[in-house]
């Protein structure tokens, strides 16, 4: 580029270009809107919730309730009917403000309410109760006097429903903050166990899926009869709904009625039933003086992860293999390279880029995985990962705030991974 031309094209955006840009933004606006509302906003909201003392029960804003009880049977004209109203704040944690209740006075009755908070009008009386503490109850007595004899005052008086209003603070939008959620999350002894489980699940699950995918791609690289069928079959685990295959594995691996244990015992590979998904450890191995506990359920979920997601790596690696130029192999043949040498020195370097990309992408996605482990073990037997812990805290223990705090940890760990990956990944994608 030279700066010599002093009569170059006009600088800045012309009206046409501006119109085009406006059109582009208009076309993209729905995408922005839905992504902002459903992804970015919840992401921020999650940080907000994680700093708030919110429990599952608080999700309904506090509401006042009113109960009416009529005492007395048939009454003559001028006799008193006593009615007891009980107003309640049903919320266990949050106060109510400006609670007001009112009831209609049925025709033919005169009402008196001996309470300074209440005002009686011709057809209605209104009571201003004011503020109510959590779980607070307020009792109010009213006296109704009929003009003529009434057989069943109860149904007549209760026939008019009392109305009650009051405003409660929304626990999500008030400005009460707490650090308790994070303290709880990091204080728990299990936090580091959970983090460690998450990381080992991610590393071995990703690696397993990648290695299986590489093998499967090598099996189907050369054309043969039945290749299309096998390729379709190899994609089945990924295409089927996760809930269907996860429950199938649970059925298959059941210690009592599962086929896998029966097969292993029948061919003499194991003596008794193995609880693949319910047992934490499969014994310990001693290597160089270190004793390593071999996890059982965690290994099983890692195998499931590899089984379910190898089709993706398989597709990518196969596509890359098919695009490698065969000239190179012919040259290598002439030079006398053996098949293993060809794989090691020719194929692998060609596949390195795709393998690295797949590893990074799948690493992040495996770390994000929730469904698989949740459906297989529910996080029991040493398989509780961070994502399962989000659910466990929020729904299992009914503490939305603590769940959100774990979710924040998930997000931050993910961010750290991504930064490391982007820092060390080659610039040319």
């Amino acid at each position, binding site marked *: 580029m030279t700066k010599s031309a002093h009569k170059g094209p006009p600088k800045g955006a012309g009206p046409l270009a501006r119109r*085009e*840009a406006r*059109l*582009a933004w208009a*076309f*993209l606006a*729905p995408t922005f809107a*839905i*992504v902002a*509302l*459903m*992804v970015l*906003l*919840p*992401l921020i*909201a999650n940080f907000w919730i994680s700093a708030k003392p919110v429990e599952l029960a608080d*999700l309904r804003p506090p509401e006042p309730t009113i109960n009416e009880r009529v005492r007395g049977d048939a009454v003559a004209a001028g006799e008193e009917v006593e009615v007891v109203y009980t107003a309640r704040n049903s919320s266990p944690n949050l106060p109510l403000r400006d609670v007001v209740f009112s009831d209609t006075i049925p025709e033919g009755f005169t009402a008196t309410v001996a309470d300074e908070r209440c005002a009686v009008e011709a057809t209605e009386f209104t009571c201003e109760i004011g503020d109510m503490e959590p779980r607070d109850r307020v009792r109010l007595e009213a006296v109704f006097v009929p003009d003529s004899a009434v057989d069943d005052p109860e149904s007549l008086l209760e026939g008019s429903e009392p109305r009650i209003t009051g405003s409660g603070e*929304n626990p*999500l939008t008030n400005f009460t903050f707490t650090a308790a959620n994070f303290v709880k999350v990091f204080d728990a002894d299990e936090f580091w166990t959970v983090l460690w489980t998450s990381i080992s699940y991610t590393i071995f699950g990703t690696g397993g899926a990648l290695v299986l995918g590489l*093998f499967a791609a*090598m*099996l189907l690289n050369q054309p043969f009869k039945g290749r299309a069928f*096998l390729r*379709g*079959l190899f994609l089945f*685990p990924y*295409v*089927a*709904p996760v*809930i*269907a*295959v996860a*429950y*199938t594995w649970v*059925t*298959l691996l059941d210690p009592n009625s599962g*086929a896998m244990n*029966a*097969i292993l015992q*029948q*061919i003499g590979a194991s003596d008794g039933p193995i609880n693949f998904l319910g047992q934490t450890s499969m014994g310990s191995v001693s290597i160089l003086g270190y004793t390593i506990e071999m996890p059982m359920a965690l290994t099983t979920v890692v195998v499931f992860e590899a089984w379910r997601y190898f089709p*993706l790596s398989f*597709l990518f690696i196969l596509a890359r293999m098919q695009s490698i130029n065969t000239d190179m192999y*012919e040259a290598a043949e002439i030079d*006398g390279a053996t*098949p293993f040498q060809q794989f090691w020195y020719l194929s692998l370097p060609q596949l390195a880029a795709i393998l690295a990309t*797949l590893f990074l992408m799948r690493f*992040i996605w495996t770390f994000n995985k*929730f*469904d698989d482990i949740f459906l297989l073990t529910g996080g029991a037997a040493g398989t509780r990962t961070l*994502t399962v812990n*989000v*659910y466990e805290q929020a729904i299992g223990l009914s503490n*939305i705030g603590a769940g*959100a705090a774990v*979710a924040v940890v*998930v*997000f931050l760990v*993910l961010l750290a991974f*991504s930064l490391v990956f982007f820092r060390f990944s080659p610039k040319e994608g």
Partner: protein
Amino acid sequence: MTASSSRSMISRGGFGLASGTTAAVLAGVIFGFLWMAVIGVTLALVTGLPARPPLLAGMLAGLGGAAALLVLSGRARRWGAMAAALIVLVAASFGAPFGLAPAEGAVWQGIALLLFAGLTGQSLWMCLGDAVPGRLRRYDFERLIIRIAKGAGYIVFSVFVALPFYVMVMTSLKSQAALLANPLDFSIDITRADIFSSYTELFTRFNFGTYLLNSGIVSLSTVFLTLLISVPGAYAVARLRFRGREAFARSILLIYMVPAIVLVLPLYTVFSQLELRNTLVGLLIVYPATTIPVALYMLQGYFRGLPAEMEEAGLMDGLSRLGVIARITMPLSLPALASVSLYVFMIAWNEFLFAFMFLDDPGIFTLPRGVASLNSSELPRELMMAGAVIATVPIMVIFVWLERFMVQGLSAGAVKG
């Protein structure tokens, strides 16, 4: 590699580790073991007989077959290998080739025996067909090893992938009591009238018809909404010039990296308060949000590859931009639209987390949510498996029918899972 396969193997004489004999021993042990395990277990599963496949005898039979291949020559090799495998198996298992008395299901045992001998012999012949005993060049030896590894790979992978699906279908046709009595007995009595009783129960007592309909509505609507929003967006990124275009095209996939579990709690709380939680509309707001970024990314890549001249001609002739998209761009990109639609349909059909968290009312369950409700110790397993089959079959039928588009969609969006 193809050029070399016609080269015949040269024995270099003498002994060594890299010899045809080593490869034959390896092949015999591996294929004998694998086919014995596969056929023996299949025999037990299909017939319900208490078969105890003798793996050691299977390996010996494989060795016998391999030995026959090396000793014999010409056309006799293949048949010789099969016959040797058969004879050695019967002898080594003392006349009970699957750990069963000969009288027990004699016909089935006979079929299994012939299958074992045939498949073992065939596998050995395909791997060792041109093998010669004695020391081999490293090149030839590695070729043999790779063939054996591949052969074993086909067997192991196929079983590993297919076994759970087989168990899924067969369990749905059995009863819990029968499975507890013999977990290996997947034999099906076709004459039984109530063979599909789990399925009829699900459709009559458990509203699975409604769930199927709900899943269909939700998935198709998700596809429609996703395309409606992502097609103009993708067109803008592919064709229109605006500031930030490149940055946008690159960063759209970052949205993809945000875990659903981080989004689910805020959405759960907010949707609870807006009373959107226990509704299908709620799902129809969330699902497109998760699919639009990837659909947009896939489509803009395809749109970029289309010739711009035709669109320009359309603009000259007085079409609006939307008219160009509808009349020119979309008809030209039907394959890409099909791939994206199928991929989005699959995501929506299989989605579990949001359906599980949002839906409480059985009247609006989607299939995954419905299957989750069958996971109870009070309900028999076969109901759960029948539910799994009902959820799996539609997506599988679509997959097999439109595999070409599905594979394209998967490879484009496959970083997600």
